[in-house]
C-alpha cells in the first residue's frame, strides 16, 4: 500500500513533465527542426541563408523594428503621462478616463484598425476637411499609419503597468524628499519617476513585444499596400504554396521568436527591479494639486485626446456600417440596415459566431481549471513540476501568435511518431492552440488570487478538523472565485475575438469571428466588416463594463469625494504599518 502510494506520487510529476513537453515544448522544437529542414530533406542553415539574402526579408525585419520601436515610443509617452495624471493629480472624471484608456485592451486590434481606416478613408470626412484647406490627405495604409494605430492599441499596456506602480510608491518616500528640501516637481522627478522607471521600462517592453507579435494591424494596413513585417511575411509564406514555403516560414519564425524571447527576458529583468513594491497597497490619494484652470486643461485635454483616439474612429466605423456601399456620403438616402440584416442572417457569420463562442468557452473553462490547479500546486504544494509547467506555458505565450500557429500545424499533424490525432482541420486544433497560448495567463491570474489567501486560513480550516472538500468549498472558492473570473474574462475576450492563430489554423468550416471580419475587409466588403465589428465591440465593451462594474463605480465614487483626502491616507498608514519599513 505504502509502496504503491509512493509510486503514484512519483508518477504525477513525470506525467506533468510529459504533458508539458507534448503541449508546450515539442511544438516549438518541431518548428525549430522545420526551420533547419532543406528542400532535399537534409538539415542545414540553408533556409536562413536564402532568407537573409532576400531583399524582402531585410525589408520585413527593418519594418518590424521601426514599427515596433516607434509605436512603443507613442504608447510609452501617452500611457505614462495619462497614468501620472490619474494616479497623482486632482483631475476629475478619472473613472471615465481610465475606461477610455483601457478600451483598446479589450477591443481587438483589427476592429480598431478598421475604425481608423474608416475614419481616415480617402473619401471620409476627415480627409475631406484636410484636403479642403489645402493639406495633403492622410493615408493610413502606410508605415506611419501602422505605427500610429499600433501605438494607440498599446497605450493600455504601458498605462496599466505604470499606474499601479505610481500608486504603490509610498507617499512617505515623496514627502521625505520634500522634507529634505526639494520641491514637489523635483521630488516627483527624483523619487517617483525614478521609482516608477522599472515599471515604465517593463510596460514599454511589453508594448514592444505586443507590436512585433501583432498580426492584424500590419495585415489590415500593410498587405494591400505592400509593407511587409515579419508577422505578415510569415503568414504570406505559410499560406503560399511554394515547395519550400513552410520551412521558410519556420525559419522566419525563428528570427521573430529570438527577438520576442529576448524582449521577454528584458521585461522579466525590469519587473524584478520593481518587485520591492509588490507588497505595498495602492494609494489612491491626490498627490499633485493643480490649480483650477490647469486641472481643467489637463482633464479636458486628456478626455479630448482619448475621444479622438478611441471614440471618433469608432463612430466613423458605426456610420459606415449603415452605408449602402463603401465610400458613400453619410446622407439619409444612403443609409440602410442591410449590413446588419446580412450579418445576422448569413450562415457563414452565424457559424463563425458559434465557433468563436464555443472556442472561447472551452478555452476559458479548461484554463480556469488547469490554471488554478497548477497555481495551487506551485504555491501550496511547492511542486517543481508546476513551476516548470508554468515556465513552458509562458514560452508559448512569449513567442508571437503567428509563430505558435505554425508550430501547431507542424506538431499536431503527427505529435508522436505513429500517433495521428487527426485534429488538424477541425475546431480541436484551435482549442488546443488557444489553451497552449492563454494557459499561462490563467496560471498567473490564479496565482495572484491565491496569494491573497493566507495559507494560515487553510491551516485554520484543517485545524478545525475539516478536510479537502471543505477547504475548497468553504474557504478557497468563496475567496478566489471573484478574482479568478475577472482574470478569466481576459482570456475569454481575446479567444472570442482572436485572429492571428485562426488565420492559419482555421479551416473552411471553423472560421472564427476575427477571420470572418478579416476576410470581408480583404475582400473589400468594408461595410459588412464594419457592421460585424460594431456588434462585437458592443458585446465586448458591455461585458467589460459588467465585469468591472465595481471598479468603474468605485473609481467614480473616489473621484467625486476626492476633496482633500489626506485623512484616508493617514488611516492606510496606520492600518498597514509594515514592520520592515518600505522593503520586504
Amino acid at each position, binding site marked *: 500500500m505504502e509502496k504503491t502510494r509512493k509510486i503514484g506520487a512519483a508518477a504525477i510529476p513525470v506525467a506533468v513533465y510529459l504533458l508539458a513537453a507534448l503541449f508546450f515544448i515539442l511544438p516549438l522544437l518541431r518548428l525549430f527542426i522545420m526551420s533547419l529542414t532543406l528542400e532535399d530533406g537534409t538539415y542545414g542553415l540553408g533556409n536562413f541563408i536564402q532568407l537573409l539574402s532576400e531583399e524582402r526579408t531585410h525589408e520585413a525585419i527593418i519594418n518590424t523594428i521601426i514599427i515596433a520601436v516607434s509605436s512603443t515610443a507613442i504608447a510609452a509617452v501617452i500611457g505614462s503621462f495619462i497614468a501620472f495624471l490619474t494616479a497623482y493629480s486632482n483631475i476629475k472624471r478619472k473613472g471615465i478616463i481610465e475606461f477610455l484608456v483601457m478600451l483598446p485592451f479589450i477591443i481587438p486590434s483589427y476592429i480598431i484598425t478598421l475604425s481608423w481606416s474608416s475614419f481616415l478613408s480617402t473619401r471620409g470626412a476627415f480627409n475631406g476637411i484636410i484636403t479642403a484647406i489645402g493639406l495633403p490627405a492622410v493615408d493610413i495604409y502606410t508605415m506611419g499609419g501602422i505605427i500610429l494605430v499600433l501605438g494607440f492599441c498599446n497605450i493600455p499596456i504601458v498605462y496599466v503597468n505604470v499606474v499601479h506602480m505610481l500608486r504603490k510608491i509610498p507617499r512617505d518616500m515623496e514627502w*521625505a524628499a520634500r522634507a529634505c528640501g526639494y520641491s514637489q516637481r523635483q521630488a516627483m522627478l527624483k523619487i517617483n519617476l525614478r521609482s516608477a522607471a522599472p515599471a515604465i521600462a517593463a510596460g514599454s517592453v511589453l508594448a514592444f513585444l505586443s507590436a512585433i507579435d501583432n498580426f492584424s494591424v500590419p495585415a489590415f494596413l500593410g498587405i494591400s499596400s505592400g509593407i511587409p513585417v515579419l508577422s505578415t511575411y510569415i503568414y504570406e509564406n505559410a499560406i503560399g504554396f511554394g515547395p519550400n514555403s513552410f520551412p521558410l516560414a519556420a525559419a522566419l519564425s525563428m528570427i521573430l521568436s529570438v527577438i520576442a524571447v529576448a524582449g521577454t527576458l528584458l521585461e522579466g529583468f525590469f519587473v524584478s527591479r520593481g518587485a520591492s513594491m509588490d507588497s505595498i497597497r495602492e494609494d489612491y490619494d491626490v498627490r499633485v494639486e493643480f490649480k483650477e484652470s490647469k486641472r481643467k486643461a489637463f482633464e479636458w485635454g486628456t478626455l479630448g485626446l482619448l475621444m479622438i483616439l478611441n471614440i471618433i474612429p469608432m463612430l466613423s466605423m458605426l456610420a459606415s456600417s449603415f452605408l449602402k456601399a463603401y465610400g458613400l456620403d453619410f446622407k439619409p438616402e444612403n443609409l440602410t440596415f442591410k449590413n446588419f440584416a446580412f450579418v445576422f442572417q448569413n450562415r457563414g457569420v452565424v457559424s463563425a459566431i458559434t465557433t468563436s463562442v464555443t472556442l472561447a468557452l472551452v478555452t476559458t473553462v479548461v484554463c480556469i481549471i488547469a490554471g488554478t490547479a497548477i497555481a495551487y500546486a506551485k504555491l501550496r504544494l511547492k511542486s517543481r513540476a508546476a513551476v516548470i509547467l508554468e515556465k513552458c506555458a509562458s514560452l508559448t505565450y512569449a513567442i508571437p501568435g503567428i509563430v505558435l500557429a505554425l508550430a501547431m500545424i507542424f506538431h499536431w499533424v503527427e505529435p508522436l511518431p505513429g500517433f495521428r490525432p487527426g485534429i488538424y482541420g477541425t475546431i480541436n486544433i484551435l482549442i488546443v492552440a488557444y489553451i497552449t497560448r492563454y494557459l499561462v495567463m490563467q496560471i498567473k491570474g490564479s496565482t495572484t488570487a491565491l496569494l491573497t489567501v493566507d495559507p494560515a486560513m487553510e491551516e485554520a480550516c484543517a485545524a478545525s478538523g475539516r478536510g479537502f472538500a471543505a477547504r475548497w468549498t468553504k474557504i478557497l472558492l468563496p475567496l478566489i472565485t471573484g478574482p479568478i473570473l475577472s482574470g478569466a474574462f481576459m482570456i475569454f475576450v481575446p479567444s472570442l475575438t482572436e485572429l492571428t492563430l485562426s488565420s492559419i489554423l482555421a479551416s473552411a468550416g471553423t472560421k472564427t469571428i476575427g477571420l470572418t471580419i478579416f476576410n470581408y475587409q480583404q475582400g473589400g466588403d468594408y461595410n459588412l466588416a464594419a457592421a460585424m465589428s460594431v456588434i462585437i465591440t458592443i458585446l465586448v465593451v458591455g461585458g467589460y463594463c459588467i465585469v468591472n462594474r465595481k471598479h468603474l463605480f468605485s473609481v467614480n465614487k473616489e473621484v467625486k469625494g476626492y476633496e482633500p483626502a489626506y485623512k484616508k491616507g493617514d488611516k492606510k498608514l496606520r492600518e498597514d504599518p509594515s514592520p520592515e519599513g518600505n522593503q520586504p
Partner: protein
Amino acid sequence: MTKSFGKTQALKEINLDIADSEFIAILGPSGCGKTTLLRIVGGFIEPTSGIVSLNDQIYSGDGHMVPVEERDLGMVFQSFALWPHMTVRQHVEFPLKSPRHKGMSEKEKKEAVENAINCTGLKPYADRLPGELSGGQRQRVALARAIVGRPSILLMDEPLSALDAELKIEMRREIQNIHKLTGATILYVTHDQSEALAMADRIIIMKDGAVEQIGTPREIYMEPQTVFAATFVSRCNLIKGSWNEDSFKVDQENVMLHSSTVPWEFRNKGLYPVRPEQLLISPEGQGMPGIIANKQYNGREIHYSVQYHDQILTVYSSSQTEFDPGDRVSITLTA
C-alpha cells in the same frame, strides 16, 4: 489652529508654544489627530484655520503656506521612507544637494555628511542599499538623513513603532543623544506612553483632536489633569465616591481620603485617581475588600487585577508577599 476634513473636525483649537531646543512628545491613541498635527507643522497639509509660525515667520495660515521644502526642518517617518535605489551615503547627501543648502561649500557638505554618518554609526554600511540593512540600521539612515542639514526642527512620526522591543530601547538613547548633539527642537509623535515619558522635555496628550494636558513627564504622570490623561499615561484606577471640600468618601466603604490637588474634572465626576503603585494589598483585614482576579509576574513587581465591587483595580506590588487568584484581600492606599 484647527483642521477639518470635510465635515469631520480632526483638530479642535490647538494652541501650542514650543521653545527652542525643546523635546516635545505628542502622545495619544491612534486617530487622535497627532499625526495630522505633525503634518500641519511640516507643511504637508494646510490648517483649516489658525497659524503655524517659527520665530516671527508665518509658515502656514493667514493665506500663507510656505512649502515644505522651504521650511527649516527634517523629518523621520514611521515607515522610514527610504528610497530603495539609493545607498546610505546617497540618502545622507540628498538633503544637502537641495536648493535649501545652496549656500554651503562642498567641504562643509562633505563634513556634514561624514558627521551624520558617524554619529549614527552607519560608517560600515555607507555603501549599502536599504534592502541590505536591518530595521534598526534603516531607522539610523532615516535619522542621519533628517539631521544632516542641521534643521532647527526635527519632526518624528512614530519612528520606533516599526522596531522590535529591544531595538526600541536602544534607539531611544540614540534619539536623546541626537537631541543633545544637534540642539534641534524635536516634535515626536508616539502612542507609546513609556517612550514619551522617557525622552520628552514636555508631553502633549491628545484625544479626539483636542489637547488634554501639556506638561513635563513628571507632571503628566504624577498630576494628571483629566480622566483620560490619568488612565492613558499612569494607568490610574478611578475610585468612585463623593467629594466634600478636600475630603473624599469612598462609596460603600467607611474610608475617607484627603487631597487638595485632585483636579475639578475628577471631583465633578465623583472620582479619585489612584496610580497602581499607590495601592497596597494585604491579607483580609482593614481597607477596601477585594478578590485577586489575575496575577502577572513582571520581575521587579507583580501586576494584580483585583475585583473590587463592580470594578477591576490594577495594583503594582513590589512586596515580598505574594497572593494568588481567588485570594480575598484588602486594599489600602499608601502615601
